[in-house]
């Protein structure tokens, strides 16, 4: 599957970068203590503005996904994947709560949403 993200995507660039790195950490492609390219290296290799990458790395660090040690670079934080799952679950729960509430106004039940979710997974 090749998902093409684009500038037309509603999320800002740094967020799209952040999300992809988070996904890689959650899926185990990036493992705790893996060294990440520095802001400079990554912005050079991708020819992307350093500000975009810096913002993405800052957010990842604030959220505890990566650690930056002075003079040594950035590493994937030693967080258990279960902990990441818990965190994601809380995020999903919050989003679902909002979704269920707004859907109810249109007569769409939580059951309907669950059915839709299964359908999407099946695709």
């Amino acid at each position, binding site marked *: 599957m090749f998902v*093409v993200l*684009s500038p037309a995507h509603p999320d800002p660039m740094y967020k799209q970068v952040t999300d992809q790195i988070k996904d890689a950490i959650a899926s185990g492609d990036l493992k705790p203590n893996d060294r990440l*390219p520095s802001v*400079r290296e*990554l912005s050079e290799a991708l020819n992307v*503005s350093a*500000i975009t990458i810096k913002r993405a790395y800052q957010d990842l660090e604030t959220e505890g996904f990566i650690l930056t040690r002075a003079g040594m670079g950035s590493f994937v934080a030693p967080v258990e994947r279960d902990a990441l799952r818990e965190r994601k679950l809380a995020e999903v729960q919050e989003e679902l709560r909002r979704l269920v509430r707004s859907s109810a106004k249109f007569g769409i039940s939580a059951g309907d949403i669950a059915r839709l979710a299964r359908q999407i997974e099946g695709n």
Partner: protein
Amino acid sequence: MDTVLEATDLTKHYEDFSLRGVNVSVRRGSIAGIFGPNAAGKSTLLRMLAGQTPVPAGTLRVLDQSYADAERDLKNRVGYVPQEPVFYENKTVEWHARLAAPCFARWDGAAFHRLLEDFRVNPLKNVKHLSGGQKKLLSLALAFSHGAELLILDEPTAGLDIVHRRSLLDRLRALANAGDTTVVVASHITDGLDEIAEDITFLHDGRVVLRESADDLATKWKWVIYKEGSIDRAVEERFAGVRRQPFGSRGLTGDFPAVREALAPALASGDARLDHASLEDILLSFIKGA
């Protein structure tokens, strides 16, 4: 003449190295070659030209703008390949394209995949399984896929095999010939890039020691191969390098038009003949002389 890049008096000091008063001017649709030995300052210069490092002194205009005012627009229009691109080792080639794509207004995913095919780089491979040359090709594919008008390529042929090097040189020449794309390459060896570069800048110890079009270089620089004693001593003394060989001496001149007349008799009698001076010969004479 339409200039896409104009750098004046670029200067940058490091603890143990300085780039001093560098001027670069690049015409639209041309290929500019920046050559020089290791540690001459080429990568520093290219990183400045590509907006990867600030310009502490001097002025830099790229596509009539400055990185300070229009970084996002310029990053879209300038394709850059660093000397040693660093990627996420554990992630695939394709993943990196997904990371880069949203940052470019004119990203062309189909073109990127065609390039990978041409370059024989498997998009599903992890970067850690790519060779140095393949990492270079990945970096080139990224730079070629976002509709850049100006390509700034640091040692683009390094690590490439002869087939890929040749196809890269052909591609660069075709891009420049089409007129819309301008190419700046830097290299410490001439490696075929000397054949395609139309304007040559030679950087040595952080300074520009030679700036000339390839045509002018070819007119001015010649090897003179001559029988001992057949040419004027005054001319011989001005040769940049003389190699005495049993079958005749060889001297390099950097100003052939000025000595043409003095050499005319020996050339006419067959006691002397001329030979093409390669860029490597010319640059070596600068390094030895410096």
